[in-house]
């Protein structure tokens, strides 16, 4: 299946609905194409993990449809669709393995699971990550456990990685190392990554697109560069704020602001144009964190 741009579509969710008491996933649309790293962000309980579980076919949905590598998600747990998971590497937010297994046992077990398992590649990642083959899963720290999970996901030549908070618990150096590996992974043709994370600085470094979910609904789906390159945050005083409002530099439907004790932050869709028009008002480069704060908590006109 190909996207409108012609790239191979690896993940597609159309109007996903899943209802739980007190929470619903509503009309979630999401795509990941070959060559893309899509960052999936949102607050705790926003629906990221539920969406990922629905995509992986672990939970039935109440509406909409989704597919992984062209296979409908509901088929993934059935005999007719299971084999496509050869091409998918998954990391959840905890090390999802029986705790008595040793690192070497995990490699042995997964060699039975995947036809494409590469034991020497697993050994290489284990060495790079400093994983002791004799250590049991229960004795690994959270960070080391996540490294083991990543080594598992990367050692069977998958086409798609689905990572749910995979860099949580890693120290900054390990995160950098993992991000390099993920960049290398997606550089090979036909591969892509869906990566949910609260560490938005990681996504700023590697993501091509950011999808934000809040209260079970997709709030925005934007190229990362549209946020971090084009947009800005104007750091205003009250008088500056009133000038911006009256200037109509920012369209009403895009106007977002956050009041602080020390001033007001305003979302600027085009920071270059803004700086030319109002050079006296400082306008910083937008970070994903800033954008999330302005979109999720900011006031509108």
């Amino acid at each position, binding site marked *: 299946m190909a996207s409108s741009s012609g790239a191979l579509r690896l993940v597609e969710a159309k109007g996903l609905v899943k209802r739980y008491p007190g929470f619903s996933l509503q009309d979630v649309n999401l795509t990941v194409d070959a060559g893309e790293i899509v960052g999936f962000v949102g607050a705790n309980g926003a629906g990221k993990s539920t969406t990922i579980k629905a995509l992986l076919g*672990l*939970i039935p949905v109440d509406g909409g449809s989704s597919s992984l590598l062209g296979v409908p998600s509901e088929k993934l*747990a059935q*005999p007719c669709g299971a084999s496509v*998971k050869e091409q998918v590497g998954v990391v959840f937010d905890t090390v999802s393995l029986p705790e008595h297994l040793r690192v070497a046992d995990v490699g042995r*077990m997964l060699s039975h699971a995947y036809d494409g398992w590469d034991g020497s590649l697993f050994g290489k990642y284990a060495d790079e990550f400093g994983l002791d083959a004799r250590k049991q899963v229960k004795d690994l720290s959270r960070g080391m456990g996540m490294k083991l999970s990543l080594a598992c996901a990367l050692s069977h030549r998958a086409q798609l990685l689905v990572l749910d908070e995979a860099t949580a618990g890693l120290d900054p150096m390990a995160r950098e190392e993992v991000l390099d590996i993920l960049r290398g992974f997606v550089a090979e043709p036909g591969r892509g990554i869906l990566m949910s994370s609260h560490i938005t600085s990681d996504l700023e470094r590697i993501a091509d697109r950011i999808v934000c979910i809040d209260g079970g609904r997709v709030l925005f789906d934007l190229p990362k560069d549209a946020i971090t390159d084009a947009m800005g945050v104007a750091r205003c005083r009250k008088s500056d704020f009133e000038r911006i409002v009256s200037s109509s530099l920012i369209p009403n439907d895009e106007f977002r602001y956050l009041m602080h004790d020390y001033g007001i932050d305003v979302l600027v869709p085009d920071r270059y144009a803004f700086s030319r028009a109002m050079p006296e008002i400082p306008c910083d480069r937008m970070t994903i964190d800033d954008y999330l704060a302005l979109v999720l908590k900011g006031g509108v006109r």
Partner: protein
Amino acid sequence: MKRAYLMEMNVLRGYATSLLATGFLVTVLVGVGMKTAIVAPAVLTSMCFMMGAIGSSVYDDQNGWGSYRLTLPVSKRDVVLSRYAAIATLGLIGSAVGFAASLAVMGLASAVELPGGLSELLAFSGERVAGMAFATAACVLIGSAVASVVTPVYFKFGQTKATQLLPTVTVGLFVVAPMLLGNSGILGGGAFGLVAGLLTFAETPVGLAASMAALLAASLLMLAASAAVSLGLYGRREL
């Protein structure tokens, strides 16, 4: 299913070793208490079936392994069928180890004069081997019955809830139901006589072969029916 089975056995390897060690200790104690070696395969078989069914289910909820396993190239059907295959494998390993140990003890008792008249009690005889085989087949049935009851409960509810529910289910099925049947008079009529007749028949060579075949066939049927129930329950479960 092969890959799911190999994964399951990989996960259970350490548990199987400790289960056999514990079973062996229990077997020795029972054997010494009863002054016989023929109980070994029966005790080990039933222990491996029952504890295998319970022990193998414990890992599913550990660290979200049950969910993660389904992101690997296996289906829910593979997971269920490989579980039953693993339980049967553990039971058969228990039988094999028990038989080997019993035959070794019998051989030793036949070859060497053991103190305290033990050689007479333990020595090799066709009758003892036949008794051992029949007891083992009966224990395969008992072990299969327990595995057939507990496994669907684990697949439906997961470890925590199943562990809370199973004592009630066990009491209901294995204590209350026989008690009600006993009070109803169904067992009192001809049932005990029928059982006694079957046991007498089992003492003949043809009867032994037929009763063992019947016990094993009944075990297989029970496990197959239980697997069908588990497939339905696990197929609908959200992970």
